[in-house]
C-alpha cells in the first residue's frame, strides 16, 4: 500500500519524460535527415550549375579564339592585339566578359586589361604561358564570384604560339541560383520540423494512452478493485501487455475470491461450532447450581465428580462465549454502541460488579468523560484486572490518567506486583490461546481474554500495550481516543432547549446514525 502514492506521484513525471524523449528523438532524426539531404543536394546542384556555366564559357572562348586567332599577323602589333581583344569582347554573345590578350609578354594596350585590375594569379599564368594548357579559376572580386579563364592559342600546325587570351566573366547569375536552392532548403526544413513535432506528439499519444490506461488499471488493482480489466486493441506489444495484465488481474481476483471463501468458511465454521455448542451448554449450565447444591449430600467421590462437571461446564460455557465473540470480531460484525460516560465511574462499576474493590487500588479521577461503549470498556477492564489478579500478584492497581486539556487520548493503566511477564512471552500475550506457561496447560480463562480485550480496544480505534514495570510486575496500558461530543453540538440538559429545530423527524435517525457513523469509522480504523 505505501508504494501506491509513490507510484502515483512518480508516474506523471515519467510520462512527461517519455513524451519529451519521443518528441526530441523525432526532431533529431528529422533535423539530421533534412540537413543531410539539403547539404548533399546543395553541393551537387552548386557544382553542376558552376560546371555547366564554366564549360559553356570555356568552349565559347575557345571557339572564338580559334576562329579569330589565325587571322592575326605574326608577330602581331599592338593594334592587332587591340582589335583581337575588341573582336573577342564583341563576340561574347550575351556574355559580359572582359578579355585581355597577351603576346609573349606584350599586353594589348586596351584600357588597362581586365576590369577591376584583377591580377591574374601566377599559377594560372604559368600554366597557360609556360605549359600552354588552358586553365580556369574561380576568383572572388570584391565579394562577387567571377570566373577567370586563360586560353593559350595554338598555331594552325598545332604548335604553341606566344599568344594568350584571358577572359573574365561574372558568376552572379549562377550564384543567385545556388542561393535560391539554399533558401528553398531552409524554407522546406522549418515546416518539416514543425510537422515532425506534431507527428511525434501524435505518436507519443498513441503509445502513451495505453500506458496511461495500464497505469490507471494498475492503480485500481492496487486499491483492491480486482475486477479491473483493460480493453485489448490491435495486436501490438501494448495489446500483449494488456492481455497479460488482464490475465494477471483475473488470476488475482480468482485467488482472492478463493481466499475469501476459505476465510469466510472457516469463520462460519467457528461460529457454527460455537453456536451448536450453546444449546447443550444451555441445558447443562442451567442445572449446574442444582448439582452444586446437592453435592454436599452425596458420596465424596460422586460429589467431587459432580463439582468437576459443574466447574468444567462453566469453563466450557465461558469459552464458547469467548469464541462467539472472537468470531464476531473476525467477521467484522462487532458493533460499537457509543455513549458518553464518566470513565472513572464506569471502571469503578466494573470493579464493584465483580467485588474486586478490596483487592484493587484504583486511581480514578472524577469527571473524565469520553465517548465509549461502556459494555466493551467493561470487558476490557475486567479482562485486564482479572488477568492481573490471576497471573500477576496483588496489589493490583488501576490508574486512569486524566487527559491534559486539549489532549485526544485517554490512558488506562493496569499494573500488578507479580513477577512480570517473561520478555519472550511479551510479544505474544495478545495472541489467541497463547499459554504463557506451557506447564500450565489449562487455566481459569479461555485463553481468549486478552485477545478479546485487544479487539475491543481496537474497535474503539485505540491500542493496547503490555510491558514490565521497572519495579517488577506487568503493566498493561490501554490507549483510547478521547471521542467527545463536538463543541458545536448542543448540550441540551435544561428546559426550553429543543434538541432539533425541526422536531425529531431526524431524531431517532440521527441517534442511530451517530452510532453507525462512529462504528463504521472505528471499523475503518480497525481494518486500516
Amino acid at each position, binding site marked *: 500500500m505505501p508504494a501506491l502514492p509513490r507510484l502515483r506521484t512518480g508516474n506523471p513525471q515519467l510520462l512527461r519524460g517519455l513524451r519529451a524523449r519521443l518528441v526530441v528523438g523525432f526532431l533529431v532524426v528529422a533535423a539530421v535527415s533534412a540537413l543531410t539531404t539539403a547539404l548533399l543536394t546543395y553541393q551537387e546542384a552548386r557544382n553542376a550549375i558552376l560546371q555547366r556555366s564554366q564549360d559553356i564559357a570555356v568552349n565559347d572562348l575557345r571557339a572564338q579564339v580559334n576562329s579569330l586567332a589565325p587571322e592575326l599577323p605574326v608577330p602581331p602589333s599592338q593594334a592587332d592585339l587591340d582589335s583581337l581583344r575588341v573582336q573577342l569582347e564583341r563576340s561574347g554573345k550575351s556574355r559580359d566578359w572582359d578579355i585581355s590578350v597577351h603576346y609573349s609578354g606584350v599586353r594589348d594596350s586596351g584600357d588597362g586589361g581586365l576590369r577591376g585590375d584583377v591580377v591574374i594569379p601566377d599559377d594560372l599564368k604559368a600554366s597557360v604561358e609556360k605549359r600552354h594548357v588552358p586553365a580556369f579559376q574561380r576568383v572572388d572580386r570584391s565579394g562577387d564570384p567571377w570566373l577567370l579563364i586563360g586560353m593559350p592559342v595554338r598555331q594552325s600546325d598545332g604548335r604553341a604560339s606566344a599568344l594568350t587570351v584571358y577572359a573574365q566573366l561574372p558568376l552572379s547569375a549562377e550564384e543567385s541560383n545556388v542561393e535560391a536552392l539554399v533558401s528553398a532548403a531552409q524554407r522546406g526544413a522549418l515546416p518539416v520540423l514543425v510537422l515532425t513535432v506534431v507527428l511525434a506528439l501524435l505518436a507519443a499519444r498513441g503509445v502513451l494512452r495505453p500506458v496511461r490506461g495500464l497505469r490507471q488499471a494498475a492503480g485500481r488493482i492496487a486499491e483492491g478493485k480486482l475486477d479491473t480489466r483493460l480493453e485489448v486493441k490491435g495486436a501490438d506489444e501494448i495489446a500483449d501487455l494488456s492481455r497479460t495484465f488482464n490475465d494477471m488481474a483475473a488470476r488475482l481476483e480468482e485467488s482472492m475470491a478463493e481466499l475469501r471463501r476459505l476465510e469466510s468458511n472457516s469463520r462460519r465454521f467457528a461460529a457454527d461450532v460455537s*453456536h451448536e455448542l*450453546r*444449546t*447443550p*451448554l*444451555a*441445558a*447443562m*449450565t*442451567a*442445572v*449446574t*447450581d*442444582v448439582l452444586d*447444591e446437592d453435592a454436599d449430600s452425596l458420596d465424596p467421590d460422586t460429589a467431587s465428580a459432580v463439582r468437576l462437571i459443574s466447574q468444567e461446564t*462453566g469453563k466450557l*460455557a465461558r469459552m*464458547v*462465549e469467548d469464541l*462467539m465473540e472472537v468470531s*464476531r470480531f473476525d467477521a467484522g*460484525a462487532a*458493533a460499537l*454502541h457509543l*455513549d*458518553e*460516560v464518566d470513565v472513572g465511574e*464506569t471502571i469503578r*462499576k*466494573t470493579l464493584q*460488579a465483580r467485588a474486586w474493590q478490596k483487592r484493587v487500588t484504583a486511581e480514578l479521577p472524577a469527571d473524565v468523560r469520553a*465517548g465509549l461503549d*461502556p*459494555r466493551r*470498556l*467493561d470487558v476490557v477492564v475486567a479482562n485486564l484486572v482479572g488477568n492481573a489478579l490471576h497471573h500477576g500478584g496483588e496489589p493490583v492497581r488501576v490508574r486512569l490518567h486524566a487527559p491534559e486539556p486539549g489532549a485526544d487520548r485517554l490512558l488506562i493503566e493496569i499494573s500488578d506486583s507479580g513477577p512480570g511477564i517473561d520478555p519472550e512471552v511479551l510479544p505474544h500475550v495478545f495472541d489467541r490461546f497463547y499459554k504463557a506457561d506451557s506447564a500450565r496447560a489449562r487455566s481459569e480463562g479461555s485463553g481468549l481474554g486478552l485477545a478479546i480485550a485487544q479487539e475491543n480496544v481496537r474497535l474503539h480505534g485505540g491500542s493496547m500495550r503490555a510491558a514490565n514495570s521497572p519495579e517488577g510486575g506487568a503493566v498493561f496500558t490501554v490507549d483510547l481516543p478521547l471521542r467527545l*461530543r463536538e463543541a458545536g*453540538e*448542543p*448540550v*441540551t*440538559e*435544561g*428546559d*426550553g432547549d429543543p*434538541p*432539533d429545530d*425541526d*422536531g*425529531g*423527524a431526524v*431524531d*431517532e*435517525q*440521527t*441517534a*442511530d446514525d*451517530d452510532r453507525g457513523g462512529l462504528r463504521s469509522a472505528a471499523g475503518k480504523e480497525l481494518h486500516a
Partner: protein
Amino acid sequence: MPRVLLIEDDAAVRDGVSLALRRRGHEVAAAASGEEGLEVLPGFRPDIVLLDLMLPGKDGFEVCRLIRAERQLPIIMLTARGEDLDVVLGLEAGADDYIVKPARGEVLEARMRAVLRRTALPADGTPAVAEPGPAPVETYGELAIDRAGLVVGKGGQDLSLAPSEMKLLLFLSATPGQVFSRQQLLEHVWEHSYHGDSRLVDACVMRLRTKIEDTPRSPRYVQTVRGFGYRFGPL
C-alpha cells in the same frame, strides 16, 4: 413465587431450565412450541414468559407479538444467537429483556426478578407517586398519565403499554425536561447494575414512541438528545 411459562423447543434445555427454576421455587409450565405456549397461556396465567427465539412453526418474534397483542405480560427472550440483529428484532417485537444462552440458573433468576420487580409497578417508588399531587392524573399535551392507576391515555383513549414501556414513560415523565443517558435509564428502569445493553433502551423508546407519539418519526414526548440520551418533553 412467580409462575413461569417456558417456551423452548430443545428438550434438554427445556428440562434443564425447568429443573433449575423449579428448584428455586418457581411454578414452571414448559411448552415445546409457540403454538403450544399460546394454548397453555390462558389456563396457566403465568407472571412471566421465557421465550426461545428459534422455534419451529411460529418463531419467537411472532409469538412475542401475539402475546403482546393480548396482555401486558413481561417477556424475556431466551436466545442462542447473541447477534445484534436477533437481539434488536426480539426487543422490537416487544420483549422486556433478553438472555443469551447458555445462562446459569442464578442469572436466569436474577434477570427474571429484575423484570418482575420493574413490572410490579405499584411498588415502584417514583417520586411523583410519593407526592400527593394536586391531580391524580398528570396531563402532558394530549397524554394523560395516571400514576396510581397505571393507566396512560391519549386523547381520551387508554393506551396498552408493555411493562417496560410503562416503566420507562413513568420514569422519564417524573422529571420532564431532564435528560437521562442510556446507561442511567438501564440502571433505573431495567435495574441492570452491570453494563447492560443500550439497545434495550433504544428498542423500548422506539416501541413507546409508536404508541404515544402522533408521528413517531418526530417525537414530542420522548425526545432524543443527540449524543447524550433521552428526555420527556419539554412540550
